[in-house]
């Protein structure tokens, strides 16, 4: 079984590292610090799953989901929003934009790992 590729998008380097370490080591990782980079990398590496911050330089992460959904090859890639905006309204907005999962910051590393595993398994 080929290793899954996960695209991590967050402008905080420490948090990207935290997500990377939280997940098991049997994934390939790509990292983006702003929305433009996220879209560019997604097109290039064709990730199996995207972890996406909402407040990033260059615009909202939710706009990135919409862009992905409009790209045929990336339309079905699972996206988990990882955000420090955690109200019901923020969760609903993420869901409406097309996110498959939502994890509020701060998060439990094990919870992040299990959500990612479940989504990858469901999509395989």
């Amino acid at each position, binding site marked *: 079984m080929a290793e899954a590729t996960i695209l991590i998008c967050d402008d905080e380097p*420490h948090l990207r590292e935290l997500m990377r370490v939280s997940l098991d080591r049997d994934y390939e990782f790509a990292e983006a610090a702003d929305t433009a980079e996220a879209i560019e990398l997604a097109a290039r590496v064709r990730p199996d799953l995207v972890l996406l911050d909402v*407040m990033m*330089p260059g615009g909202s992460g939710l706009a990135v989901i919409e862009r992905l959904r409009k790209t045929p090859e990336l339309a079905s890639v699972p996206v988990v929003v990882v955000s*420090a905006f955690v109200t019901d309204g923020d969760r609903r907005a993420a869901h409406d934009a097309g996110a498959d999962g939502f994890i509020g910051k701060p998060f439990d590393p094990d919870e992040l790992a299990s959500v990612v595993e479940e989504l990858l398994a469901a999509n395989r």
Partner: protein
Amino acid sequence: MRAADPVGLGRRALDRVARRTASIPLLSQVVVASALITLLVTGVFAVFLIAMSDLRGSTNVQARSKDVTTATLGLERVVNELEANLRAFVISGNDRFLRPWRQARDALPEAIAGLDKLVADQPVQREQLSRLTPRIQEYVSDYGVPLISIARVSPEAARAPVATTEGLRRINSVRSQLSRLLASEDAYASAQEASAKREAARAVRLGVAALVATGFLLLLFCVFLARGIARPVRDVAVGASRVAAGDLSTRLPEKGPAEIHELTHAFNAMARSLEQGQRELEAQNQQLRESERLKSELVSIVSHELRTPLASIIGYATLLLKRDFGETEVRRYAEIIRTQGARLTSLVEEFLDVQRVEQGRFELKDEFVDLKPLLVSEADVVASEAPKHQVDVLVPHDALPVRGDRDRLAQVYGNLVANAIKYSPEGGRVEVAGEVADGVVRVRVRDEGIGIPDEHQARIFTKFFRGEARESGIAGAGLGLAVAREIIEAHGGRIGFESREGHGSAFWFELPLSAGGSAGSPHEPPSP
């Protein structure tokens, strides 16, 4: 040339009158107009009274004329009596006829006197009467009396043609004068009557004309009342209905007589004050809504800002507790936890600053500060965390001396540089320049970033205001500039900016030059 238009002319004339009487109170206008109409009606009655009295005068003339005629005829009868009896006596010689002759002769003075009295104010008749009177007296004394004496002596002589002819001549002369008197009285009477009738007819015509004029004036009065009272009152009622329906911008023209002017003026003042009140309420509502929105956004932003470092702290701590790492990783994660904790602390400090600013508990040290090394070192710290940006610091050869609180000034400057980097997400050049000019130390931080839209520029120093930062994915609580302004103003300085959307911003602050410093030193490298 415009053709004459009687209706238009009339309206224009009315308008002219309305303008001329504009400032006179309505009450006075109504009183004056009523008085005028009353005067006119009185005049009409007077004219009719004159006509009636003229007619009565004519009746009087007729009655008097009849009296004169009767008296004249009476006189004629007396004369006839004299003549008839005298002739009868001469022919018959019978004394029986002398009695009525004497009676007639005695009645003569009374008849003449009566007539004389009646024609006292008619010179023509009077003159005729005065010529007639001697003729009659002469007929009695110069002819009648001698003829009677002759007849007693010689009846034949008295009956002679000479005597008869003389008598006839005299009596004919009397009779013709009497009939002239009658004719002239007739002419006088009819002339008087015609003149009286003419006068009366003229008076009636005048009266009718005055009546028509009165009617016309009454009509004008009605029009004036309608224009002066009814129409303005209706206009005010229409305006009031519109205000009641919610159109508070309704205004009435403030013109017309004093009372109407007062009324419309008061109406407009009322509408203005209502509109003002509504505007103020709306503005307050808007402010309330805005402050509600800012508050809820603030809660969301503050929560986000706190959660971001907390995510690192809790995440790495959990990893350290649950999993095994080598010494290097453990140290590294512990270091991350520490720096993120410090970030959390400074964030809390920032919130507390706002609290201090709001409560006026802002304590500043007063020490000598050279901004030059501060500009360089702070820029280095910020630049090291922004690899995409090029931070250039341009400072003069000499010091940039001010007095104040070093840490607070560093906070302001750090905030401006951090903003310059934060608001140019594509990277680019950030230029810091310090200089001494006109007794102040001026620091400017310029970026090539997204700039500030015109509609946000006025509120950029308002706390918690972030423009479209959230939508652009730029973190922050919207407190930095609000606190910066408080700090700079507390130092007796000024803070400001120039910005164009899409072309970057240049924020600057000025502080009074400290006496210890040197002014006007050359720049090295030169500031642009």
